[in-house]
């Protein structure tokens, strides 16, 4: 014990010397460098106007819409996914599929919630299916692609409603049939162009079939949409 005390003495002595004998005023830069050059302001999204943020996101969504309309196996749709576009398309479609008047509850068409559930549940099931079959694509990328590829069908729905304003004869039905078939083919083609490469070739058909069924059902809902009775004469 004595040895330890002796060994410690000079240490404590030194420490006390330092702390006591420091009568020099403390000097130096103690400010955090906050005021950096103005270059950083351009890259920070914290203090940019809300308008810019929304516009940038909308631009990203719009870019993906263009990709869906011209499917050329680009991976831009896969690299940075977002679910804003699918949500927008899904809500638009579900709203357009509603009958015009609120009191026609028995028009037999799909309700808002049914359309919503079919689109989201359907794309989740298709994604799980492709993952279970051994796909290499991530879950949300697949959801994003499937959601964005509803775009042709939503466009067809908008045109169908315009056609239905003109009348509900056989001619209007023929126009709607052609529209829906074309947009259904477009949707299926676009989504398989993005998704089929993530699968081993012997299982491609197994992955494409559910996608085909999914868009077929959505196409059917659009084709059979009948305007509410209030719109009649």
């Amino acid at each position, binding site marked *: 014990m004595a040895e330890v005390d002796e060994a410690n003495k000079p240490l404590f002595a030194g420490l006390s010397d330092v702390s006591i004998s420091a009568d020099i005023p403390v000097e130096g830069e103690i400010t955090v460098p906050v005021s950096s050059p103005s270059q950083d302001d351009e890259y920070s999204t914290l203090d940019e106007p809300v308008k810019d943020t929304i516009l940038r996101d909308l631009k990203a969504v719009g870019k993906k819409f263009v990709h869906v309309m011209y499917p050329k196996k680009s991976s831009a749709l896969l690299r940075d996914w977002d679910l804003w576009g699918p949500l927008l398309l899904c809500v638009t479609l579900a709203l357009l599929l509603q009958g015009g008047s609120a009191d026609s509850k028995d028009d*037999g068409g799909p309700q808002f919630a049914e359309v919503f559930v079919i689109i989201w549940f359907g794309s989740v099931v298709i994604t799980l299916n492709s993952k*279970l*079959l051994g796909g290499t694509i991530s879950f949300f990328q697949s959801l994003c692609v499937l959601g964005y590829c509803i775009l042709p069908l939503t466009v067809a729905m908008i045109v169908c409603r315009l056609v239905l304003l003109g009348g509900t004869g056989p001619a209007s039905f023929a126009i709607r049939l052609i529209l829906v078939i074309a947009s259904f083919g477009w949707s299926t083609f676009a989504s398989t162009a993005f998704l089929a490469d993530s699968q081993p070739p012997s299982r491609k058909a197994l992955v494409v079939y559910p996608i085909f*069924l999914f868009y077929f059902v959505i196409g059917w809902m659009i084709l059979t949409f009948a305007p509410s009775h209030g719109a*009649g004469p």
Partner: protein
Amino acid sequence: MAAVDDLQFQEFDDAENLLAANRDATTISIGDPSSNSQKQRRVTSATPREEDDDLLGHDDSDKTELLAGQKKSAPFWTFEYYQTFFDVETHQVLDRIKGSVLPWPGKNFVRLYIRSNPDLYGPFWICATLVFAIAISGNISNFLVHHGVPDYHYVPEFRKVTIAATAIYSYAWLVPLALWGFLMWRNSKVMNLVSYSFLEIVCVYGYSLFIYIPAAVLWIVPNETVRWISVVVAMCLSGSVLVMTFWPAVRDDHRKIAIATVSAIAALHVLLAVGCKEYFFDSREAENPKTDGAASLTEKIAPTMKNHSM
């Protein structure tokens, strides 16, 4: 089997000797099953024995057994566990569909096509397709029947999708569950030679529903004769596949119970087919407009609403 074990022990113990004996076995890794079997063959050719053919014959079956064992090893909360149920290729699914449509006397569907690799892909998507096929073609046939009738307003009848989904998915899952439980119970009483796992039964039932998809499309034709013919043909084809599959599993039981089980399977199958046809494709509406359901409701509502709007 003893010979295989002997050889493997020899191989791993005296690797040095073997390497000296045949140089070309050096680059083989242990983990790879195909190269392993090659190694075994080389070993046997180096030390010729009488059981060579026997051993080579067992080689493949051993490998498949091993792989089958490995497949089930993943715990059920992992994603890999569920991937084993979707481990099928396109041609396998097509073969299974063909097998479920064309019954061949004396050939067991499970042993011939499924072979210890039951998948859930087929049952799930066949059921989904059938749901929409029945709902959509029922809707079209309803439209065709009423076409030209004044005061008829077309309705998509989306409600039918929900009803069809409930009926078909509960048939495709609850009946196999009940059958599996029953077979387990019987197996504990009487030793049966053939026993099926739950997934195999689900798989058989799912694929047996495939034939109803083209049948449902045929039901669009508003002609009762065509409809009944297609119902009976579809029922006989897939029903016979079901009966032939499950007959071996109950054959060794008491005669009465075996016959009762098989006839219950057939009866449920007939019930589904006839029930779907009668519910979704009811052509009596044409003669008698006073029917229940959404169509008649809107027919009643439509004139009153027109009056209101005028």
